[in-house]
């Protein structure tokens, strides 16, 4: 049975404004995160995964804006919170870890200053207590306190990513958004960092949103999976539902594109490219690449429908 929902979005829409026009980066996204579980968000590059993660914590790039929909956390629509109220949630209730550990720390500040600054910004403790919290946070990500005095350039990629995770979790938030936290790391370190996130999840009963372009990785680690395509959430459900019984043609193709150890020659990449989001195709955004395209797909935009318990898909083929 499903647990409690920690956060959900309703018809979320995000736009980026560029010289060429308006990028429709997210449209009608209905997404949810269940408490103390790990939800993977997958899809090809440019389909809006990071945008969704950053919209939830409301740190979009300066030319981006949430233009419609709601994000409900603890019964409150956080889209309507003032900048100051939102700031208090960031880091304290919702943490973010970004893709590239090389660039996500301030090169001019030591690890200690990063941690202290974050702690002191949110809670009223003495410097000594804050320092103790900082040390605990470091040891909880498996780093020695010796590293407190280090500057980012003195750390390895894996160490930096651990520091970034320590920073995002030092205040024991409820939700952790990890945006491709391991893409820039080598395979062994990747696994360690993901194990670490799972450990923290259990320890702090964290709700984790793991953004990744690697559906195999999501299948292995996640409890729930959301599949995104061209700014739409096209499929969402428990990991077994989505992986074993994929309903959207795009999800099926994504799964086929996974290199299979027994059968490497079977790998097929999805033909074609994701569309330009300034002028997305009408109707279903996937229709130009869809092997099951019907006439109606060009005209009508599919809505999310429930095909199994908690298993949703946005495809006109599944409409009864």
């Amino acid at each position: 049975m499903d647990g409690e929902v920690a956060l959900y979005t309703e018809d979320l829409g995000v736009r980026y404004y560029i010289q060429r026009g308006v990028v429709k980066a997210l449209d009608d996204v209905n997404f949810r995160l269940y408490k103390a579980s790990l939800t993977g968000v997958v899809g090809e590059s440019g389909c809006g995964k990071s945008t969704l993660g950053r919209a939830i914590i409301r740190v979009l790039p300066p030319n981006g804006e949430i233009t419609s929909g709601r994000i409900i956390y603890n019964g409150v629509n956080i889209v309507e919170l003032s900048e100051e109220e939102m700031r208090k949630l960031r880091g304290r209730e919702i943490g973010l870890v970004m893709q590239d550990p090389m660039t996500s720390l301030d090169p001019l500040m030591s690890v200690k200053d990063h941690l202290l600054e974050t702690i002191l910004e949110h809670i009223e403790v003495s410097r000594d207590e804050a320092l103790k919290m900082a040390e605990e946070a470091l040891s909880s990500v498996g780093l020695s306190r010796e590293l407190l005095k280090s500057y980012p350039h003195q750390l390895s990629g894996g160490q930096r990513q651990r520091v970034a995770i320590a920073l995002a979790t030092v205040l024991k938030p409820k939700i952790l958004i990890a945006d491709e936290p391991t893409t820039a790391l080598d395979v062994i370190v990747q696994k360690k960092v993901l194990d670490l996130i799972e450990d923290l999840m259990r320890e702090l009963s964290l709700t984790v949103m793991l953004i990744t372009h690697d559906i195999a990785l999501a299948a292995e680690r996640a409890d729930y999976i959301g599949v995104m395509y061209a700014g739409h959430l096209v499929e969402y459900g428990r990991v077994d539902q989505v992986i074993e019984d994929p309903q959207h043609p795009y999800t099926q193709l994504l799964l086929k594109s996974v290199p299979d150890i027994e059968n490497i020659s079977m790998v097929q990449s999805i033909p074609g490219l994701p569309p330009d989001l300034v002028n997305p195709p009408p109707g279903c955004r996937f229709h130009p690449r869809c092997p099951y395209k019907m006439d109606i797909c060009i005209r009508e935009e599919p809505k999310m429908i429930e095909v199994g318990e908690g298993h949703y898909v946005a495809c006109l083929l599944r409409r009864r």
Partner: protein
Amino acid sequence: MGKLANYLVVRSLLAIPTILVLVTLVFILMRLTGDPIAAMVGMKAPPEVIAELRHKAGLDLPIHEQYIRYITGVFTGDLGKTLLYDRPVIKDILDHFPATLELTIYSFIISVLIGVFTGTVAAINQGKFEDVLMRFYGIFTYAIFIPWFGLLLQMVFGNWLGIIPIGGRLSAYISPPPFITGLYTIDSLLTGRLDAFFDALRHLIGPSFTLGIVLSGSYTRIVRANLVDILSQDFITAARARGLRDSLVIKHALKNALIPVITLMGLEFAILLTGAVLTETTFSWNGLGSYLVDMIRNSDYIAVQGTVVFFAIFVSIISVIVDALYAIIDPRIRY
């Protein structure tokens, strides 16, 4: 710290070749026409006078001997004696230098403050009206002709409104403070001469704002460019995502954006000195720039050569200081 000291020593030694090149260049330059004395004194002068001046300046020696004497002089602080008054050039230079230093320090501070402020405003309002306005400010100040701006200030604030003096370093009725550093504002504070302090400060307003505003445009531009770049970097997003206040996030960004500005300061310094020559002339500021201009008018070739050499060495020393600052501030630099 031992390593830092080491680095500084090495960096200072590296300045010597630069100084040598510049100083040699000045030497060649001064002999481009074959006979600087004739060029400066003019053809009308009687040959005996020219011959005597040539002898005094050592120009009758073979060229390599002249060069050796000259280089030895430069490195022992002997820049020769002025043709006109027979005073050691270095003494004249040291008399006039504090005035230039005082002017450049104040102008520098003003330009950096204005530049960082305007550049930051532009960057955090990227693409908006403020940004376009600040970009225009950068271009406009870059193009300002210093004497024009200085004279306008004198006319409006000095003559019409009467709130700043028209020129000079100190009013005639105020006696200069005792010589300690030669910077009036510092010496007067050190000796408790508040009257001299405020008077000197009032005299500094016109020239230092003229020079400061003209130079600020370069800082506006580079601060804006760096800050726009830094603000789009991951660690800024990460800092915001940790719930840091905007002011704190901007502080992070600014710190990083200002590091490359330090390098600019070295280059800007040359422009600062160029500007100082014009500013000093415009404001009857008795510094090294005015001295240089006077000596050229007097056709005092030895003094001109000495002053230009002094400027060359000064610029080289500044670039060493700038590099040292860089090394101290940025933890990424390994020395």
